[in-house]
């Protein structure tokens, strides 16, 4: 399945957002997620199904003004 991860197309074998994060090596990182522009809380990642073409945003703390 092709997912758009932070703007880049990636081939990922995952049926949920939680599985995708694991497959993409974010499992231990402090990140927040959005699916197709909607926030997905951490607790909902395991029950959030994915489909081909879904856009995932994975963000972390960064410098800001």
């Amino acid at each position, binding site marked *: 399945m092709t997912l758009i991860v932070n703007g880049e197309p990636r081939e990922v074998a995952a049926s949920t957002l939680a599985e995708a994060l694991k497959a993409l090596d974010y499992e231990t*990182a*402090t990140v927040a997620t959005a699916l197709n522009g909607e926030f997905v809380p951490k607790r909902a990642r395991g029950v959030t199904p994915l489909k081909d073409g879904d856009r995932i945003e994975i963000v972390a703390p960064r410098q800001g003004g």
Partner: protein
Amino acid sequence: MAAAFTVYGATLRSRLMLGTSQYPSPAILAEAARASGAEILTVSLRRESARLKEGQDFWRLIRDIGARVLPNTAGCFSVKEAVTTAEMARELFNTPWVKLEVIGEADTLQPDVFGLVEAARILSDDGFEVFPYTTEDLVVAERLLEAGCKVLMPWGAPIGSGKGLNNVFGLRALRAHFPDTPLIVDAGVGLPSHAAAAMELGYDGVLLNTAVAKAGDPVAMARAFGQAIEAGRAAYLAGPMAPRDMAAPSTPVVGKAMLT
């Protein structure tokens, strides 16, 4: 030192809020943050690379500094983007605080005040404690308070411009109109004297980033801002004199020797 002030239930001794971007190194950021005395640091959210994981080191650094964090929605041009960013920030930073930016124009980075009010309402209704980055417009300020904001953050000048207080009249009017609302000048401050001027107007605090981060010596500049803000606050409390157009001798006229 001037008395503490309270914003969303947090009691703060320092009236300086510092951004964490554009420093020469993480070590200089940490040292500048400590030298400034700031108790609130602004942060953002950005895409995390699985390979680099830059955000993880940054987050460790910020937690080590120990200040409260105020996540921003910088770069958001729509209500939807800003609200989603705020939701992600709340989970990531474990805080209901958000520095709400809804940008309306790319060259000046000036707030889209219509979107700002709408996003502020959505977020306040959802339990966020919103710090809106706004203009000095009184009517917009009124709408933001109605939307649930308990603090206002009018710009001094465009973000990163270092121009200081572009509209002193407008900022003074805002202060006079909302005597009991915490007001923080956010953005455009370039020099400690600009920050002191904001405090002399009776503002409760100043939020800045570039002026410290891009200084030749960010740590020394951070300290200078901390001192200027304290001096400006003390001056406000001391009651500045009224300016006048013509000279008024400070030395007594009476009793001057006649020497002609």
